[in-house]
């Protein structure tokens, strides 16, 4: 029979922790089982616990402003959820989590986890490390998203500008940035990216459009 501390060891946030700390966590971790399709937590409910998946898979979803359900992530063994709102005053569950197969997990109540943190700096560090990874991931994601939309907006802008009559406008990158609601560095970088992809060519003081189809694809892509 594997002990509770052993199976907690398989949770990635806890993986580096000494066994004494795992024993402390095991004392407050409540094992729970969910059937396929069962809801584990509801978006918007007060956050009362953090969850650590031992077996099975869960789906994390949010309801968008338009009422559509958006799946944000799929969680598997070793992963955790609901740790972030746990540390917020009056934190609420940020998403609905549902079991996609038979799920076994450990729930740790908010007050228990916070009490543990007071006496276990190693657990605090482990959670911080996990938060740091998440933050990194989100930063990349945000950059990627805004880059992508700037790319599309810039492609549209270039196409429009190149069409306007006989006199080509002369614009600085700062002016283009202002027109597109972004910053100059973003324009410089995105122009470089478009040039790398052979959609345009930077020819000293000229932005030469090379590929109409490709640029239109960026606008609608």
């Amino acid at each position: 029979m594997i002990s509770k501390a052993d199976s907690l060891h398989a949770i990635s946030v806890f993986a580096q922790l000494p066994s004494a700390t795992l024993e402390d966590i095991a004392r407050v971790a409540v094992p729970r089982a969910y059937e396929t399709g069962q809801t584990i937590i509801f978006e918007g409910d007060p956050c009362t616990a953090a969850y650590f998946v031992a077996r099975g898979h869960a789906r994390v979803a949010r309801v968008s402003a338009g009422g559509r359900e958006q799946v944000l992530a799929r969680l598997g063994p070793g992963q955790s959820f609901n740790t972030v709102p746990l540390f917020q005053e009056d934190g609420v569950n940020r998403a609905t989590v549902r079991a996609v197969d038979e799920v076994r997990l450990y729930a740790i109540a908010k007050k228990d986890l916070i009490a543990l943190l007071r006496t276990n700096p190693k657990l605090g560090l482990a959670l911080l490390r996990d938060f740091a990874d998440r933050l990194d991931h989100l930063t990349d994601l945000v950059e990627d998203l805004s880059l992508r939309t700037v790319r599309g907006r810039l492609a549209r802008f270039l196409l429009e500008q190149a069409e306007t009559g006989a006199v080509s406008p002369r614009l600085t990158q700062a002016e283009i940035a202002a027109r597109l609601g972004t910053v100059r560095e973003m324009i410089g970088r995105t122009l470089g990216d478009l040039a790398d992809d052979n959609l345009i060519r930077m020819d000293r003081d000229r932005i030469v459009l090379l590929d109409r189809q490709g640029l239109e694809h960026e606008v609608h892509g």
Partner: protein
Amino acid sequence: MNDWVLPQIDLDRCDRCGLCVHHCPTQAVEMGGRGPFIARSLDCTYCTDCEAMCPQVAIICPFEIVWVEREVSR
């Protein structure tokens, strides 16, 4: 041939902070008696770094946006 276009400097806006001189990667810009000027025009790669650095928007590198076929016919 297209003219060898250079960054445009507006000395009325310029407060002679020297950032453009300092940051030009090819040392094309120099500080003269009246303000900065492109001293070695052939060295200027039109990289736009001087424009990016200038706090007064006194030095600018504008771009023309053209279709490749129109460019050929010019």
